[in-house]
């Protein structure tokens, strides 16, 4: 495992490059196929509304997959992630248009831990609202 960022070069508060990830209905169909999660709340507007959602929503696991890219791109080696957890607090609502929704992710080093690892605290929002609670990853640096 060879992360490109050195443990000694970061401190608590070091900010990671922010990213924004677009998500459209087509994205969700592709993710459903790749992940095997065909729950209709992620592609069928009629069904989503019948169960009380405002519209089709993104898979929580899709949002989780996007959010960690801020960490894996920064570290350089996705295999350097040793721990990753989130709480699904608010859905990412994906309207049926060309724009869809956008998932915005920022991250900063929240703690320096043992064994050359650091904890990265993420903030993940869509339409101005936090969609993941306490998204945190521990990554091993060089």
């Amino acid at each position, binding site marked *: 495992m060879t992360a490109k960022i050195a443990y000694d070069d970061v401190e608590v508060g070091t900010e990671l490059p922010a990213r924004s990830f677009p998500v459209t209905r087509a994205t969700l169909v592709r993710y459903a196929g790749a992940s095997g999660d065909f729950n209709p709340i992620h592609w069928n507007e009629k069904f989503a509304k019948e169960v009380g959602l405002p519209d089709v929503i993104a898979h929580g696991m899709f949002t989780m997959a996007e959010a960690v890219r801020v960490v894996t791109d920064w570290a350089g080696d996705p295999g350097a992630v040793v721990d990753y957890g*989130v709480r699904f607090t608010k859905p990412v609502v994906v309207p049926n248009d060309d724009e869809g929704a956008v998932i915005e992710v920022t991250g900063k080093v929240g703690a320096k831990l043992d064994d050359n690892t650091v904890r990265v605290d993420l903030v993940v929002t869509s339409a101005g609202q936090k969609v993941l609670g306490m998204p945190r990853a521990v990554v091993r640096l060089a």
Partner: protein
Amino acid sequence: MALDQSFVGRTYPPTEPYEVGREKIREFAVAVGDDHPAYTDPEAAKALGHPDVIAPPTFVFSITFKAAGQVVEDPQLGLDYSRVVHGDQKFAYVRPVRAGDRLSVTTTIEAIKSMAGNDILDIRGEVHDEAGEHVVTAWTKLVARAVAEEA
């Protein structure tokens, strides 16, 4: 109705091995729009110290969640899956999942709670490779929402 507490600590038999394929990893990486070369180019993965292409961190969920189906569909437990939402998800990795892995999941019910009529289920999936080495642990919290009172 609250779920039976006696299911806490119950462990289900290990699943049949899931063989991780390079093309399945590629499909997943494309689906999440991630073009990191370690997911598709074996040489790039090797340059990082991996024996073959690796999977994105959340890839393994598809395997652990399918294994958690043993709990969800356990008729004795009687969870109403139509009311279930995914509450939390956490992974602890010993090493990344990689192409060629044959992964087996051992699923355990860690906790059952009832809050405001919601049933909350904590499920742990221990993922091992064919050699029996521990690869990753996945913790999944499922919440079965209370049946709404009819107006």
